[in-house]
Structures are given as C-alpha cells and as structure tokens.
C-alpha cells in the first residue's frame, strides 16, 4: 500500500539463478579512491564477487542505466560467499580492505586500481592479503575496533553453533561459547560500550562486554585455539526480553540522536538505550525483511528505512511513518550510498539478484486495472437485444412458475422385462425380515440403450416399502452409441407389512453431451405372486367388498392361472391368497349374478387383490373384442374402516411428537446439568458435586431410552403408513368404481387423497390431505357461492384426526350427490346420485355444515366434542355395523360415527404412560454409587490444571 514508487536511478540484474541473502551487499569506497565515492560490492552464495561503480549519465529519456563499464571487478571463488564487509583490516595500512566470509574461511582482500591511458582502460585487481581457516561452519561476523584500538578493525566470527572467534587482523585471538546458543542471531559491536549485542535463541537481546568475553578463558596458561570443547560461562552485561527472534540489529551513533540500539524483530521494531532499556517500540502490521537507520535532520530522532515483504520501503521517523514507496522486488538488504551524481541513494538487493539504486520521488505507484471489456458500442444491436430481453422478461414475469421444457429425445432408453416365473432359488433368504416364511424373489432385466456415447451413468432402483431390490444402484462408466447393456435385479419383500403398490422405478442419471444432467426413467410392474401365495379360501372374514360387472361370471381358475396352488382342482368359485407374513384374502365369484366378492380380516389388504382382479377380468373379458367390460361398486364405502387406519397412523405421529418434545426437554436438562457441572469444576476451590453427576448420568440414560422409543415408534409408524397407503389406494379405487370416474377425475382424486404417505417434521399426511380436501370442498365441490372463499390455513399438525375424517366423509357425500371433480363436466345422472346415497343423508344440501344441527348424522360429522358427551349416555347404532352384515343390498352410507370411543383424554394419558414407562427412573440409580465416586475424582483431576 503506497501512493508512490521509488525512482529508478541505476539497476542491474545480477547473475542467473544466484542466491543472495542479508550480508551479501556492502557499500564502501573499496578502491580507496580519493574522490571518496561509494562502490557497491556484491557476493553471492555461488561464490561470485562483483564490484560496481554506477555512474549513469542523464539523457533526455531519464538516466542511462546500467552500462558494462560500471562493473569494476567480477571474480569467482570456489566457495560460497556468506558475508562481505569493508573495513580497515590490514595491520599495514589504514586503507579500506574487503573481508569475505566463506563457510569455513575468512579472507581479506585489497582492491587496487591500475590506471590505464583512457577511462575505460582502468583495471582493478583483487589481491588476497591473508586468510583464516575456520574449524566450525560460520554464520556471520562483525568488526570494529575491539578493545578501543584506534584505526584498526578486528573481526569476530560467529559460527552456526554460537561460538564466537576473534581475530586481531592477521592473528587469531581466542574462541568462546555464547551461553545458551542454539541458533545464532545477528551480532553487532557497539564501540562506545566496547560490547557485543546479539539476540539469542531464548529471544533476549543480550549484551556482552568484550573484556568479560576475553577474560573468560578456561585457564590462563593454555594456548588459545579455535577448537575449543568447553569454556567458562561468559557473564552477560544486560539482557532484554523481546519475545521474538530478531532479523537485524543496528547500532546508532549519530551526532543528533541519542545513541541507541535498534533491533528489528519478526513483528516489531525495538529501540533500546545502550543500557538495555526500552526507549520505544513499534508494532508492524506487515512482515519486515530488513532495515537501515540513518541520520535525521530533526534533533533527537532517528530515521530508518524498513523494507517489507509487500515490496515497499517505509521511511519512519521514530514511530511516525514519513514516507512509503513501492519497489520492484522484495529486498533482502538495503543500504544508503553516496555516488558521483547522487548523494544518499537507496541501494537494494533482492534475493534473486536484482540490484537497484533508487531515490524517493513522487512518481505515483500506478496500478493499471485491467480494462473492462472495451468494445465498440453498437447502439442499434444493443437496442435490439434490449428489446428482445425486455420482451422475454415481460413474458416470464407473467408466469410465476417457470416450467422447464421437457425434451423427449432422450439419449438413453430404459426397457425392463420382468421374468414370467419366480426365481428358482430365492435371493431373499438372507435379507428378508419376515419370520417363518420363504419369501420368493423375481428377477427383472433392465436394458439400457444409448443413442450416443453416454458416460457416467448412475442407475438407481426405487422400491417402496416393504419391497426391496437386491441392489439399489449401479454405476456404468460409459455406454457407446447404439450399444446396450443389461442389468439383472431381484425384487422381493423385505418387511412384514402390506405393500401398497406393486411397481418399482428405475431411473438413470447421466450427463448429456453438453454436460447438463439428464434423467431417464422406467417403471417395473411386479406380479402379484411376488407378495402373495395361494392358500385355501377362508369362509368368514371381517371385511367384505362386492364388485358388480356387466358380464357373466368367469371361473376364477381361468383368470388366476398362476396363483391356484392347492385350489387347482376346485370349481373356481373361491380362491384364497395370503400375503407373506400377512392376512388371507379370499375371492369369491358368484355363480348366478355378475358379482365378485373379496373378503379379508384386514380391510386394507384387499387393495392389491382387488386391483389385480379387476385388471385380470378386464384383460380376460375384453380379449379380442371391443372393451365394453365394466366393473362397478355399489356397496357403501368402507369409510369406517378407512378412518380406523387414519386414526392408527395419526396416533403414532402424535406419539412421535410427544417423544421428541420429551427428548428436547431432557436434552436441555442435560445441557443445564453439564453447565452446572462445568462451573463447579472450573471453580478454583473444589466444591461437592451435590449429586449432579448422578443426575447427569440419569438424564443421559433417559436420553438413550427416549431415542430408542422414537426409533421403535418410527418403525411402527412406517408400518401403519404402508397400511394407510394401501387403504387410501383401495378407497380411491372404490370411489372410482362406485362413481365411474374418468381417468382425469381419478387423477385429481388420487392427488387429493394421496396414497403417498410421507411424514416428516414439518407436515404429515393428515394435514396435507385435509388441506387438499378442504380446498376441493371450497372450490369445485362447493354448494353455494358463500363456500368458495379461499383462506388457506397454515399446515400444522392437528390435535386429532376428526377434521380430516369429517372432510373426507363430506367429500364422498358430495361426490355421491353428483358433483364432479373437474369443473365444466356435466352433473352426473340422477340414478347414480341416488344409488349409493342413503335416504337420510340430507345433511349437506344446505352447503355449510353448521347450518343443519338438527340432523343426527351431521352431528356425528361436525360436533365430535359435543357428541362424545352424548355417547357416554347412549351409544347410537353404528352405521358401520350394518355394512358387512347386509352387503348385497345395503343402503347405508358409511359415515364416521365416532373417532375414538374412549375419548381423547384417555388416549393422551395412555400415550404419556407409555413414554414414561420407557424412561428409567432416577431412583434406580442409587446402587451405582461406586461409579459415581470414580467419575467425580476423574473429572476433578481433569480440571485441576
């Protein structure tokens, strides 16, 4: 983040693939030229030493930049160069020499100029003065007039293990260990104190006096060697904890500023006095790389430049940011140098070898944003496009729901063939959960055929409970065009409940050529014999249904050739089927009249046989002729039985809600106890737990028990859902037969009283059906205009199922009166209306239900609450009782008489009792005292930190 960038004066990219780090850049008048111009000295990790003397000339286009003449010396050493410094390292002269640090060697060179006749004829030579071979791998070195000697610079080399070796020019002085060294830090010499400053691995700034280092020899008589093994501990002069590792140290000795030590940490900058006290610090919001202090014009302040990893140079005066400028590269070292034409130039070196001499200026750091789609505007085309889009938007705006266009040309086709016969060996033996039955299975062949190359096909097989398939999904990596592939799947009954449908669905998901997801589906029709087996007919059964036809009766043996079993030899007037693990359904064919009767102990179990019977009759009798076979139903609708199914299903739903409520309560109780416990444990002074742990465990058990109860309830609810689904199908089908509904009307009916029973937390079957039926009653089935107001109530779980039962009954009644489910169809003929409707049913003539309170059956429908009280005194004759006894000429219409004979409150209590019974009593927990004690101590140990 900066407004400006540095102005480039002279720059050069050094070498190829060479690495540089802090220490590789040095500034100094190395050739001891009398004009006292600084030269730039660079040494790389690859061992190449370069000396530059930049002197660009000003041209019209700015500075001329790098020229070949600027290179004074370029020399390759065999060893990597870790650090270079310029100082008075020779004992002979006071001239400046070059000290070069290699991993195991320290060498001093002098640079001499041999002048030629012209300017570019001048030659420079590097001459080695002396070198020291070192025993340890070096890290860095510092130099200075150690011990206060004037005009000479001694050298102190720090090695990677924290040993410091001192060299008094040509001779080795001594080596010492720095205490507590692990990784070496920056090292600097403070001439005023005659001390060394470093930052140790324990992240302290440490100051050692030269004298105390020198005096800490092991024993006076022994000769000093580099190869020391041990030594006395050096006494530290002062330390200051900065709590982070340091990148660099600089010692300030400017005339205007108080002499101080600047330490650049990884995240902060510290300014310490020479006595080791903090003068100020500054927390940086960026990662610094290196810094360089320089003299300030203002009295008593220090200026310094900090280079950051965000490629900027920040100029601070004490803690105030004075200037920020962008640089091209992230520097590893920054220096200030005086050149011929430019005093105080900033020299930066990046780690990949970009050397730059620059100065600060007000050139804006211009970030040029990428141009946004600059194209020539064609107003005509734009107008046209706009028009088009507007039109589209207007069109779409009218249709709130945008239906996607269905494309018929699918790339993938699915065809399914179901085997004629059941499998020889049932594949259901292991999986089926029906006790005591050998459940058969049937194999279906699914053929996938692709028109084009289709990849990544995912085939899913959906079955509804209790049916299941041997495999639920297949994945095909690819299918070539024109080829087909076959999948074999076995279907069988898994659970012990009534199937509501005998079909399964295959869907294949695949991406089209354009990448859009596509789905192809196919339906599988499974035969009745998959779920039922032939048994002997049963004479008496609780529920009976009679179907009228317009054809003379046929022998049942002819139409059920595959399900005869032991009945094969009989006359064909009666057949019995049994669901695997379920009830027996008996089909009777009347000998004289054109009627068929189904009977069973379980009402909803008759659905599949009935459907199958009608289906088979239709195909049998219509064979080869025009389809004039018609089945009809003119008994009373078995609403009473149907309502019992609803009631059972609803009770399980209520149970589930209750259980969940309790679970919620227990869970929050659990949390509260946990919180209390936590506070107790966190307390510094341990206090008794006051049996909270017992409570916790008890609640935990209750939670588990409740969860089990919910699981059980779910199972039972699923079973009743299946039953309800079958029952709904049956009822719908009977209504269809009864009123001879068209297919269109039938589809409306099935979508209103939906056989798909899918309960979730938000809404269940009862309220959905109720809402749908109410809607029908208020719209197409409405008697008066007053009825037609639409005011949909939110879907909430009702307190009892009476409302939905009432509305279904009302709907059936209105349908019986000749109302049509689809507007615009003519009223049904009179005789149809009269046939099923009982004479006493004048309830709904007046439209609104509440307007005929004097009629008894209406009371039954409307005022359940009121009725309950009444019923205790005198039970009215149940209309439902008449149905089965007098089946062939029954006139009564199955109205709901009552929903729960024993009243709501009782039911409620029973439910509650049931739930409470599952939950273990807290008192039972007393015998577990031992456990508790252990728990207690454990947890205390845990928190006693």
């Amino acid at each position, binding site marked *: 983040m900066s407004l400006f960038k540095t102005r480039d004066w002279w720059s050069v990219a050094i070498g190829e693939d060479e690495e540089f780090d802090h220490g590789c850049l040095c500034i100094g008048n190395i050739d001891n030229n009398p004009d006292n111009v600084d030269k730039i000295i660079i040494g790389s990790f690859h061992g190449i030493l370069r000396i530059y003397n930049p002197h660009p000339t000003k041209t019209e286009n700015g500075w001329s930049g790098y020229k070949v003449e600027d290179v004074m010396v370029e020399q390759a050493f065999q060893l990597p160069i870790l650090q270079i410094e310029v100082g008075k390292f020779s004992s002979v002269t006071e001239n400046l020499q070059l000290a070069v640090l290699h991993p195991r060697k320290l060498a001093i060179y002098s640079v001499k100029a041999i002048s030629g006749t012209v300017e570019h004829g001048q030659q420079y030579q590097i001459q080695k003065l002396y070198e020291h071979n070192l025993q340890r*791998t070096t890290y860095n070195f510092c130099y200075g007039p150690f011990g206060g000697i004037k005009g000479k610079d001694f050298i102190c080399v720090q090695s*990677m293990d924290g040993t410091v070796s001192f060299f008094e020019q040509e001779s080795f002085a001594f080596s010492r260990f720095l205490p507590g060294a692990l990784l070496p830090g920056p090292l600097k010499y403070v001439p005023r104190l005659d001390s060394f400053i470093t930052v140790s*691995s324990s992240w302290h700034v440490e100051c050692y006096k030269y004298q105390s280092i020198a005096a800490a020899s092991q024993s006076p008589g022994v000769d000093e060697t580099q190869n020391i093994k041990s030594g006395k501990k050096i006494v530290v002069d002062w330390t200051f904890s900065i709590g982070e590792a340091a990148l660099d140290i600089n010692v300030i000795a400017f005339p205007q500023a108080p002499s101080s030590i600047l330490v650049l940490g990884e995240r902060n900058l510290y300014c310490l006095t020479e006595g080791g006290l903090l003068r100020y610090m500054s927390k940086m919001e960026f990662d610094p790389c290196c810094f360089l202090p320089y003299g300030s014009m203002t009295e008593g302040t220090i200026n310094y430049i900090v280079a950051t990893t965000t490629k900027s140079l920040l100029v601070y005066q004490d803690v105030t940011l004075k200037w920020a400028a962008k640089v091209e590269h992230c520097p590893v070292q920054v220096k200030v140098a005086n050149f011929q034409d430019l005093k105080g130039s900033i020299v930066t070196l990046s780690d990949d070898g970009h050397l730059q001499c620059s100065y600060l200026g007000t050139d804006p750091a211009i*970030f040029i944003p990428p141009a946004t789609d600059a194209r020539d505007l064609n107003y005509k085309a734009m107008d046209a496009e706009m028009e088009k889009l507007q039109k589209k938007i207007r069109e779409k705006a009218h249709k709130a729901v945008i239906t996607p266009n269905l494309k018929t040309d699918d790339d993938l086709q699915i065809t399914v063939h179901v085997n004629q016969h059941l499998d020889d060996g049932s594949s259901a033996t292991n999986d089926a959960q029906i006790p005591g039955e050998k459940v058969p299975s049937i194999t279906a062949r699914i053929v996938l055929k692709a028109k084009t190359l289709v990849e990544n096909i995912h085939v899913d097989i959906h079955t509804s409970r209790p049916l299941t398939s041997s495999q639920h999904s297949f994945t095909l990596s690819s299918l070539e065009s024109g080829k087909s592939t076959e999948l074999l799947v076995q279907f069988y009954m898994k659970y012990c409940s009534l199937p509501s449908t005998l079909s399964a669905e295959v869907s294949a998901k695949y991406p089209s050529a354009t990448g859009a997801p596509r789905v192809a589906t196919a339906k599988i029709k499974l035969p009745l014999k998959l779920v039922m087996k032939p048994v002997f007919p049963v004479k008496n059964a609780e529920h009976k249904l009679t179907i009228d036809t317009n054809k003379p009766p046929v022998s049942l043996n002819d139409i059920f050739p595959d399900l005869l079993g032991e009945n094969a030899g009989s006359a064909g007037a009666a057949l019995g089927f049994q669901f695997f693990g379920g009830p027996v359904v008996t089909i009777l064919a009347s000998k004289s009249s054109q009627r068929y009767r189904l009977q069973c102990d379980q009402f909803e179990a008759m659905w599949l046989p009935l459907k199958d019977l009608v289906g088979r009759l239709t195909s049998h009798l219509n064979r080869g002729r025009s389809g004039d076979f018609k089945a009809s139903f003119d008994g009373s609708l078995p609403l009473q039985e149907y309502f019992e199914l609803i009631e059972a299903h609803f009770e399980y739903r209520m149970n589930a809600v209750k259980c969940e409520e309790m679970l919620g309560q227990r869970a929050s109780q659990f949390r509260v106890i946990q919180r209390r416990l936590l506070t107790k444990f*966190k307390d510094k002074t341990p206090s008794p737990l006051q049996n909270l742990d017992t409570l916790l465990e008890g609640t935990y058990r209750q939670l588990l028990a409740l969860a089990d109860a919910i699981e059980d309830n779910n199972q039972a609810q699923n079973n009743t859902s299946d039953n309800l689904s079958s029952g709904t199908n049956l009822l719908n089908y009977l209504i269809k037969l009864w009123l001879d509904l068209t297919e269109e009307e039938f589809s409306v009916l099935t979508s209103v009283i939906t056989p798909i029973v899918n309960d979730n937390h938000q809404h269940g079957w009862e309220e959905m059906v109720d809402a749908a039926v109410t809607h029908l009653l208020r719209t197409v089935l409405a008697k008066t205009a007053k009825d037609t107001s639409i005011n949909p109530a939110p879907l909430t779980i009702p307190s009892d199922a009476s409302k939905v039962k009432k509305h279904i009954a009302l709907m059936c009644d209105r349908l019986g009166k000749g109302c049509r489910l689809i507007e615009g169809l003519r009223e049904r003929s009179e005789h149809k209306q009269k046939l099923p409707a009982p004479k006493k049913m004048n309830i709904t003539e007046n439209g609104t239900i509440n307007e005929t309170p004097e009629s008894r059956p209406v009371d039954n429908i409307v005022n359940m609450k009121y009725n309950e009280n009444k019923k205790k005194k005198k039970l009215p004759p149940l209309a439902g009782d008449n149905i089965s006894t007098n089946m062939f000429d029954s006139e009564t219409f199955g109205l709901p008489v009552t929903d729960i004979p024993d009243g709501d409150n009782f039911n409620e209590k029973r439910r509650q009792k049931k739930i409470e019974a599952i939950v273990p009593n807290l008192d039972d927990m007393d015998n577990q005292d031992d456990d508790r004690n252990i728990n207690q101590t454990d947890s205390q140990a845990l928190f006693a930190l």
Partner: protein
Amino acid sequence: MDPMFLAYSYFRRRKYQKCDEICSQLLEKNPYDQSAWALKTRALTGQVYVDEVDVDEEGIAEMVMDDNAIATVARPGTSLRKPGTGQGLPSQGVRPVTNSGRPVSGFVRPGTQSGRPGTMEQAIRTPRTAHTARPVTSASGRFVRLGTASMLSTPDGPFINLARLNFSKYAARPNLAKALFEYIFHHENDVRNALELASLATEACQFKDWWWKVQLAKCYYRLGMFRESESQLKSAIKQQEMIDSFLYLGKVYVRLDQPLRAVDIYKQGLEKFPGETTLLTGIARIHEGLNEMDDAVKFYKDVLHFDNMHVEAIACIATHHFYTDQPEVALKFYRRLLQMGVYNTELFNNLGLCCFYAQQYDMTLTCFERALSLADDTTSGDVWFNIGHVALGIGDVNLAYQCFRMSLASNNDHAEAYNNLGVLELRRGHIEEARAFFQASFVLAPHMYEPHYNFAALADQLGDLQSSYNAAKRAVDAYEGHVDSKELIQQLKQHFTLL
C-alpha cells in the same frame, strides 16, 4: 554450502517450505539435531502464524459456555452489548445498522459480522443464509481449520508428538521452550498443552520473563478464563511495558464487556508508546462499537497522523463522511485508497455511491461496472442492490426493479432488496406481492426497521389493524426514534380506544 546455514537463510527470507524440507532431511540424518529441530518448529509455526490480537471471533460455544458474570443491564454507553444512544452519529434512518444494533462499520474485521445471540437455542435458530448453512459459528471452527492446515504439511503424522513430550524438561530450556510454545499454540492449536508448558516455563524463569506471562494470558483467554488472563497481563505490564500486553489486556476487557476500562488500558499504553497505531485503532474501534462516531473518527484521524497508509482508518473515516452527508469528502478518502492500490469490489461500489451522491453521474456507472466485474458471489448481491438504489434515484423504476431482482438472484437473503422490491410492487398496485416481500424482508433481517414499518403501513391501509400495530411496534423496537412508526402506533391506539 552448509545445509543448516541454507535452511536458516531460507527461514530469514520466509521461505518456510524450503526451510522445512532441509530441516526434515537434517533430522532424518540426525534426529537429535536440536538446532534443526528448533528451526523446523519455527518454520512450521511461521507458515500458519496469525497475530493473536486480531483473532476475535466470538462463537456460540464461547457465548453460551461463558459463565463470567457480566451485568446484563448496563448503563448506556458502558457496554458493547447495548450500545448507547450515541451522540453525534447519524440516525439509523441514515446509517444502517448490523443485527446487533451497531452502525455498519467501514471496515470488515473479525467480530463485526456476527451478532451476539443470547442462548444456544436462539443461536441455532438464527436464520441460515445462502452463504452459510450454519449459524455464524465459533472461533473454534476457524482454529480447527488452522490446525488441519498444519496436519496437511506433514503427511506422516504430526512433527512433534505432544503427548510424549516432557514439558518440564523443555520448560527449563528457554532457548527451546519459546519456539516450542509458539509451535504448540499456533501450529498444533493445542491450548491446554501450551498452557502447561507456559506455566512450567514461567516458573522455571522465576516469573521474571514478561513474555511467558503474556503467553499464559493468551492461553487463559482462549480457555475463557478472562480474570486469570487479566491478572497475568497486569503482572506482565508491571514488569515490562510492551505494546502486545496492552493490546491483549484491552481485548480481555472488551470480552468482559468493559469497553471504558479497555480504553483506559489503551490510553495507558499510549502514554508509554505515544503514537502507536495499533493502540489508537483499538480505541477507535471501541468508540465505534459504542456508537460514539465523533470520538471514533477523532482517533482514526490520530492514527492517520502516525501512519497515513492505514487502510482501516481511511475506510472508517470515509464511511463516516458518507453517512454524514459529505459524499465529496468520502470520495476523496476512497480515492486515496484506490491510489494506494486497494482494488476490490467494495471500494468501487463505495466510489460509485459517493460519485452518485456527489452528483458526478458520469463516473457512477463506470465505478459500478468495475465493481461488478470484480464481484464474486458474495458481493454481487450488494452491488446490484446499490445499482438499484441509483436507478431509483434517477427515477428509472424498471431498471431498479430488475436490479433488485438481480440482487436476489445472486443472494436470496438480501433483506434490503426484498424491502425495496416490496415498495416497487406496492407502487404498481400488487398488494399481495408487496406484502410477501415485506414479510420476507423482516423475517430475514429483523433488525431493520424499514420492512416493519412498510408492512405496518400496508396492513393499516388494508384494515388489518392488529398486524399493523404489531409490525409498527417491531419497527419502534428496531429503531426507537422512528417518528412515522410512532405516529402510526398513536393513531392505531386512538382507533382501538374508540372501538
């Protein structure tokens, strides 16, 4: 070239990956190489280091399990929970607020986004947005992410097995312990072990190193033991005044909901370190949180005096100027940010709005165009909303309508867009749609007063007085000073009494 030297050099240049590789090789050769071990811990820490001062996300778990007793009914102006009425700040009608009732800040920081739900139930029930399927969860999620990042870098298990570490041995060695602590705290994110090491280490150095005390405080803070944290920090400051100590202490007081005390601490720090921008920013943030905009801006200006490249300060001042009817001044600040190299959707969006209100219409659309070209899924909704706003300003209702639809297309939780769409639908006479839009708006953002009031006004016209009254009440709850809502309530009350 010595590999150890090279590794150390890479570490200096912050090339942690390379450093880590070399150290691993060294450790393979010699598993007892202490310096390589120490360097590797530091390199691994450097990869994931986040300054702890800036990490301040307060999650559900922290809030609910936080049992530090804090006055629930604080005096106005002394608590961040219940920001005071505030002087000198533009009313809510001008400057929108976040769902915690504070004015929208000019700079997104950790903690400015989430509100403070009171209970677990409430927290879980907060509306999920299109961007987060879960309610704004705790800091721990963020820390866990940091922790998993570290696991990735070492495929064959963690570098240091903390369970087998003898802490007392390491605590006695100051040159290893500090790097190890930072590794455990930042890289492994194992606060309990870090705490154990820190407490042993501070004991080992006879409680003489302030650094260990600050680290202890950091651990206590993470563990929610703010009082312990406070006492450690106080002791550290007594020993050696450092900026970080003041910052942490201020943070502790903010968490304890004592903003004024935190300001005191920051000021105490400023006495020692005059001109420290982090401390000044801390004060400014607290004033902003307390709705004291004038003070906040004053301190942000102080920050700029010492660091004129401070993006947060510039952005906050610009926002303040924008909402105090000085779009030209705000424009200047935003332009400076642009010159400094900030280049993102938000900035161009703000520039576009400033241009519009400063009547520099030629630049407005260009700015928005740039904002859109830079926008991603999370921001494009806001940009479209603002373009819609501009369209409303120039009277192009159709464009506005479509912009708001676009806004909803990219972010279907944009409550403001719902509200404005509702108003537009109402103008077109589609009452049912308008009602639905207002309803959607105030369900999504109950802290906004506009949809409440709009709904109330509409219901009043339709004769649904009860819902009108309820909605108007909610509007006044959200914004106490809203005159129209109050008048509506007054009117309704009169009506009810007549009945």
